[in-house]
Structures are given as C-alpha cells and as structure tokens.
C-alpha cells in the first residue's frame, strides 16, 4: 500500500504545484462571482469593443493582488467572445519606459499582429506615424487595439511623449482603442502631465488584498482535490477530509492570522501554500498541521537576526564596540576609533579575546560583507577603508537579543552592552 501511495502522492503534489504556479487557476473563482474587479473590467472593455469607442482605465493596487492575472483572464475571455476584433499590444514599464523603445515595440507588435514585415531601421517618428495610421485603419475595420501598459508609473517618468501620443490618437473619432495601465502606485494618475491627464478618462479599479474569509476560500480552492480527477477516489476523500479538519482547527486560524498580519496579498498566500505543498509527506501524500506551521516559520525568518547568530566572538566584540560608540553620541566613527574602543575594553577587562589589528580588520570586513554595518558616506573611494566612517545597520535591541540567544557569547560582552544601556 505504501509503495503504491508514493506515486499517488507525487501525482497529487504535481497537481497542486501546477495550480499554485498558474495565475489563471488561482483567480478563476472570480469568473463565477458577481461584482468583482473581473466583472467590472470585463464590462468596461467589452462595451468599448462592442460599441466601438475609445477608453482608458487604470488598475491600481499593491503588488501581488492579481491585477495582471485578472486582466489576462478578461482579455482571454474577450478574445474568445470577439474573435478577430481585438489585438493586444503589451508594454512593460521596466523594459519600455524609453519612448523610442516603446514606439518601436508597439510597431513591432502591430506588425506581428497584422502579418506585416517590421523594419528595425525605422525611426521613432516613422514608428509613431505608423502607429497612428494603424489605429485609424483598425478603427475603420472595427477592430479594437488594446494597449496594456504594465508598470504604468514608469511610463510617467520623463516627457510622457508615448502616453500623450497614444491618448491623443484616441481622441479622433476613427480610432478604436483601449489603454489599460497597471500600477502598484495608487497615485499613478497624479503623475501624469496636464496635457496627458486631460485626455485620460479617469477610470480606476482598485485591487486590495482579500479578507480573511476570502483567503480561506482561496486556500480551499487551491488545495482541495477534485473528486473526478485521475487520482484514486479513496485517497482524494481522505486527503480532503484531512484538509477540512485542518481548516476547521483553531491553530490553523492562528497561523492564518499571523500570516495575513504581515502580508495578505495573494502572492504571499501562494508562496506560503507552495511551501506547505512542498512539505507534503510523500509516504502518505497527506498534508498535516506541521506542514503549515513549518511553512509559517520559514516565512517569518528575520534575516538580520539570523546573520547575527552566525557571528564569531570577535565580530560580536566589534559590533558591541560600535554600539558603545553610537551610545556615546559620537556622530561619526571609523575602524580606528572602533579599535581604540576595543583596546580600552580589552585593557579594562583583560579578556582572552585580544587580537591583533589585522585580525580585527578582517572581522570588520566580514561584518561589511554581511551588511550588518556599512560605510556612512558614499564618496571617498580614495580613502583607505580604515578611515572611512561607518555605521551600524542593526539596532541595539537586535544586538542585545542576539547576544542573549548566543550560547557561546562571553558574559563580559553582554555586560558591556547592558552597562552602557543603563548608564
């Protein structure tokens, strides 16, 4: 039985992982429910396609809330409903924020869409003219061109020539186009110049992280296995009943709470579930509470504290010295002043941890590497490292906490840190 369970578990895990990595599946429940951003956006685009008018809309919301995924679903559905009446041009602010580059990309995609040959040598003006001509032609043929501008805020840097020429072309009666901007900046429309803003229809759709109930429903949607899948029936029933009992558990509610307190976006939930599914017990193919708790602990690591735990005693000494210097309100200090402090400590306490300057400097460099400390100035590349002012990137609370957790840490060190705190 156990031998047979292993492939089943593999199969189930593959199904679940496939779901989590597929944004279309993640957001598919939106299709059936009314009054969502999906239905609003679809109505908007649909009406402008069928009524042959121009439109523009911004999808705003924090990263990882499914703006892009919802838009993809809408476009896919509309393509099915209106075959040959839609052509989609996709631009990304990270790649095409440069105007010339963007017009070139638009021309390239238009050529690709309409089986024209694209000339790489065409100038930016040529491309802009081509785009306007194409818009007119498409309008006459009652074909809607949909421009998707991801990272919309990045297009609003600089002169905004692209946005202007796009939106200006849409003012003519013949054209038939929809501009959809996606941005994680909620004030993206405020970034627009006056001439652009006046041509922009101020439609905005706001995407927000879903509520706790919504997240639980999403989890059920993602993790529950289908009865009529290729997996054995009794396995699916056992798996699902196990999962239902976990979802009903009070502890699970606690996990969910602490997860969403930090970040309730869909992408964070997906990451969490991905870890859970990856932790699946491959013998039985079932998810257990431990999977969820383990995944949560992995998600809630604190990198700074982790890396403080990795320090050698000497490196801790240097951090404590720096902390003392900061508490003395010495506004700027460098390696030499740290060494002075270190020496004075070593002279006062006569510990066995007194090392040569070179060794300390190596420890100092390790700290720089770990980015627990950094140079306070960006310039001064000519000055030797030991003279450049430095500063701590951790708080004294974090340092104290890590000293407490560190079992090998000498008592003197803790005393040094505590002493100056209460003095």
């Amino acid at each position: 039985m156990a031998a047979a369970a292993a492939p089943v578990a593999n199969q189930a895990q593959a199904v679940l992982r496939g779901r989590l990595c597929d944004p279309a599946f993640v957001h598919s429940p939106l299709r059936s429910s009314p009054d969502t951003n999906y239905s609003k956006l679809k109505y908007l685009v649909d009406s402008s396609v069928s009524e042959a008018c121009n439109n523009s809309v911004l999808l705003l919301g924090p990263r990882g809330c499914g703006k892009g995924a919802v838009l993809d679903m809408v476009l896919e559905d509309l393509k099915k409903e209106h075959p040959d009446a839609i052509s989609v041009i996709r631009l990304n602010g990270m790649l095409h924020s440069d105007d010339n580059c963007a017009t070139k990309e638009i021309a390239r995609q238009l050529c690709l869409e309409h089986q024209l040959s694209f000339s790489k040598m065409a100038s930016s003006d040529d491309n802009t003219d081509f785009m306007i001509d194409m818009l007119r032609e498409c309008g006459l043929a009652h074909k809607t061109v949909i421009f998707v501008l991801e990272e919309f805020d990045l297009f609003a840097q600089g002169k905004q020539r692209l946005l202007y020429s796009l939106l200006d072309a849409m003012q003519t009666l013949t054209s038939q186009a929809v501009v959809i901007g996606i941005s994680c900046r909620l004030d993206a429309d405020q970034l627009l110049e006056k001439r652009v803003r006046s041509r922009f229809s101020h439609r905005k759709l706001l995407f927000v992280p879903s509520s706790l109930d919504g997240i639980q429903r999403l989890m059920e949607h993602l993790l529950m296995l289908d009865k009529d899948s290729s997996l054995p029936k009794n396995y699916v029933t056992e798996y699902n009943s196990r999962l239902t009992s976990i979802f009903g558990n009070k502890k699970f509610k606690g996990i969910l709470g602490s997860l969403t307190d930090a970040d309730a976006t869909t992408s964070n939930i997906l990451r969490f579930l991905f870890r859970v599914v990856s932790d699946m017990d491959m013998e039985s193919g079932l998810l257990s509470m431990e999977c969820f708790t383990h995944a949560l602990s992995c998600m809630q690591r604190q990198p700074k504290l982790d890396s403080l735990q990795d320090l050698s005693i000497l490196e801790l000494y240097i951090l404590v010295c720096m902390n003392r210097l900061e508490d003395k309100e010495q506004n700027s200090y460098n390696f030499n002043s740290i060494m002075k402090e270190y020496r004075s400590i070593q002279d006062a306490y006569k510990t066995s941890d007194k090392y040569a300057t070179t060794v300390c400097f190596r420890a100092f460099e390790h700290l720089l590497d770990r980015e627990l400390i950094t140079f306070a100035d960006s310039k001064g590349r000519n000055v030797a490292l030991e003279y450049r002012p430095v500063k701590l990137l951790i708080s004294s609370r974090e340092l104290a906490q890590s000293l407490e957790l560190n079992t090998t840490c000498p008592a003197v060190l803790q005393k040094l840190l505590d002493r100056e705190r209460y003095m």
Partner: protein
Amino acid sequence: MSQPVTPRRTTRASTSAPDSPSSPPKSRSKPSPRRQLLAAAAPDSPSSPPKSRPKPSPRRQLLAAAAPVPDSPSSPTKSRPKSSHKRQLPTAAAVPESPSSPTKPRPKSSHKRPPHAADEPTDDNPLAALLESLPGRRAQARDLLRLLAPAPALPVLLHGGAATGKTRALLLALRHLRPTPRLVYAALRSLPSPRALFASILAQLRAALSSSSTSSRQRVPDKPSDFVPALRDALAGVVSQGENVYLVFDNLEVVRGWDKGGQLVSLLLRLHDLLRLPQVVLVYVSSAAPDAYYTMTGSVEPNHVYFPDYTVDEVHGILMRGQPNPKLYSSFLGVVLKPLFRVTRRVDELAAVLEPLFRRYCEPLGSLNGVPDEAIRRRLFEHLQPHLTVALNETFSVPIRASLDDCKDGISGGKGSVKRQFGGRDGLSSELEFHMSVSAKYLLLSAFLASRNPATLDAALFDATGGTDSRNRKRKSSQASIDRKDTMAEELLMKGPGTFPLERLLAIFQCITSVSEDMLDEVECEDTIMGGSGMNALMSDVLLQLSTLCNSNFLSKSRSCPLEGSGRYRSNIDEDLALKVARSVSFPLSKYMYRR
C-alpha cells in the same frame, strides 16, 4: 521514470571512484574554492579519459557538466538506446566524490586519501549520498530539493554568508533531480556588465538548442527590452523539447553595485512574471539577506532558503573529511579549533590557517601514522602553543623561501593586502628588501612624512640644521593645550593621512636624502660612479619610482585639483611599515615625525 537511471549512475560512480577521488584538487596549484567546485562539476576532470578536447572555461565546464552532453565519450555503457543516452549526466561520479571538493576545503595534505566508507554511494539511496556530500547542510538540502523538485515551481532565493555551501548545495541538488533538468548558470561576479550577462545566458541556451538552429552569430542584445524577448524565445525553444530549465543567478548581490544595478536586479527578480513560462524555475543565490532587495523586488518575492554558518561541530566534521590519520587530526582540531573559531567562523579561512599549524603540530612526530596517546598529545600541544598564539593574530602568512615562485606569491599577496592597508605587513616586510630600490624606499618615507606631518612644520623640521631641532619641536607641542591635542588626535584617527602635492614630496625627498648622504654614498657607490654624484642618480628616475609606488598602491593619487592643476598624493602605509623601511636604510625616521 527514475528507475532505469539510478542504478546505472551508481554503478558508474562506484567504478570510477577509486581512481578519481584525490586527483582534481592535487593537480591544480592552488584553486580557489569556487573554481574547484566548477572543476569538480566538469565532465572532464583531470581523471577522465578524453584529453584531446580543448579546455573550456570553468563556466562552460559547469554548463557542460550539468547539461546533458550528447554521447559523452566517458560513458562506459553503450548498450542504452541513443535517446536516453542523451539525457545521461556525464559526471554522475562527481556527486559521490564530492568530499574532495571545495566548499569544505581540506588542508592540503600530500597523502593519498583512502577511500572513505561513506564515499561509496549506496545503490538504493542517491538522496543519502547527496546529503552525505553536504555535511551540515541536511535541512537546507532537503528544503531545496522540495522547493525545486517537480518542475512548476516559484522562484527560490538562497541566502547566507560566504562559504556556507550555497552554490554547492544548489548544484548538487539540481544534479540529483531526475529527469536531469537543463541548467543555465550565470555567476554574476564573473560577468562584468548586463551585456555580458545577457550574452552568457543566451549562449548557454543556444548551445542547448544547437541541434535545431545553427545560427551562432546572433546579435547580443544590450538592452533589457531586447533581452527579455530573446530569452523568452530561447527558453520556449528548450522547454518545447520537453526539458525543464533551471535558470540560476549566482552572486546576485554584486549587481547592486553595477551602473543602474537597481533596475537590473528588479528585472532579474521579476523575470518570473515577465517570462510566464511554468517550466522555467528561477533560482537566485545571494550572500546578502533578502531585505537588501526589498526596495527592488517585484510582485513575486522568491521563497527563501537560509544557509547559516557552520557550527563548531559541523566545521570539525568537514575538516575531518579525508584526513589520512583521523585520530591525530582530531586531537589536533580538539586543541586548535575552538580558539580559532572565536576569531572567524568561515571554513575557508580556518582551513588556510590550520594547514601550516598542522604541519607544526606534526613536527615532533616521526611518522604520521601512529595513534597519539595522552602523553604525546600533551607534548604536541606544548610544542604548538606558541605557534597558535601567533596564528591567532595574523590573517595570513607568507612562507619565506628562496625560490622565485614563492617570492612572486608573496608579492601578489602583499599587494592585495596593502590595498586594504592591513594584513600584508607581516609578510611584506620580510620580502621588502629584495624588491625595492633605495630611492623608492626614500620616496616612500618622504611620502609617509608628507602625509603625517602638517605642512607648516616642514620648514622647522627640514631646515638647514636637518633633524637636530627636535628639542625645540617638543617644547612647542607640549605648550599646546591638552584639549586641542585630543581633538587633533581624534581628527587624525578619523581623517587618516593627509594629501600633499608633488612639489612637497620632492622637497622632502631631497632633504632627507641630503641628510643621509654619507650613508647613501656607501650604498649607492655604483650609481655614484655612473652618474657623477649619488644625489643625481637618486633623483633621476624619481618620477618613475613614484608611479611604481602609486601602481602598487603604496601611494594613492587623488584626482587633480582644478585650481592647482597637478594631482595630490596620499601615502597608504602605516607607521610600522614606515619604521621597518627606515630601519632597512638606517634612516632616523622618528626624528622627523611630528608627535602631538
């Protein structure tokens, strides 16, 4: 699926294990850990048969190792059908022979490593072999395998300090996967620009596609807007062959320092969104913690796997691997490891310190094969004790030997550390006599004086009477108030050595050479004959010497001041080194130094 592959792999591994194990690290003079890893991953490690092949660069080797190479000549089994043959990994043997590899650098002993019992992989459990080859990284390797395993996977970020086995664990884990995925590996540290990065990635992908498209001369995109479509096309081509692609970006942290690095990092971190290819798994390796990227990330933040530093016990275990005399080495580590561990926790540094120490430790012993008893141990410890305290206080030592090669080694090591101002002192000073002309030494001293002394005191120090007015100077400084002295000292500590123009340097140089002229005549008698006077000979190539000193970073030249026109210099050497140099030409340096 994995059934037919696994047994063959292990049998091949066990057959090739006896002859290969210790050869890769021995045959190279001094490979850096990373290089070694790549070499270990390479299909033609020195022990493998095909010698005629031109030597590929390390990165290519790695690629070749991880990617299935069509009919590799080293494969002994010809019975399998061609199609599955293509998927075969040429260096499956590298997995079990991993103890000889680098993230756990062993002290290089000249003894043949006896085959370790654990090196032989058990036929039924490749996972155990994998975990065995990653000591102390059990949890991380498991996590990695789980997160990476079947193909659709969210991006993963491996982070942790230097020398914690991130890259190694990742590469071994990827090699462990069945069916073997296509690996595209970009070590960002060795790719100096975005263009080089794009070119490298696309070249690796095109090599994978070479059967279908032979157009090798394709333009390398230099803009991200050209790169992403090209990457998508290439990846789609590979994916359509039914392969999973693992795109690995190693040393992600260095990109932040590049020109417009922030944009590139955010692009790389968002590739998952931009590509939308579920069969492509993105893996990032970074020594910086994930919070270093928070300002640059996109919607998909990768899953993190943290690699903590090794604990004492893990380091002990790692260093013990492959020791010819485990008992002896264990007793040595028992003495040495704890104190060294207080200073640094990095395995590579520890291994470098331990190697000469162990040689010292063994000195009183006749043979290295005996098992030490309690009395011998105590004797050995007493013998080692003084050396240990020395070792604790130096970062690295340069062996003083007469051969030319060693001298060169010492100098290159010295240069590297002079750049950092420290460390080089111990090694460098002993070598200094042989490599610096007298005039260069005087120049160095005058630069040191010009940097340390205030310019206003030059006249007092170097007037006609030479350095005889030290009494006068002392009185002057004692008159200054203690407060001002403190702030001055503080300032010196903060600001470092001062800068000076070339004229001042030359003036001081002339002064101090004229003071010790009598000495010079003895030293430079040959020059005297040739150049008429010792002074002239010394001055003749002073600018040449100056540029040499600048190039070797003893002095640094700041950019020229727009008003004065010429550049200003600064001496980078510290007082200890200056005193040593002065002693070597018997120049009374302390007389000329201004003490506050």
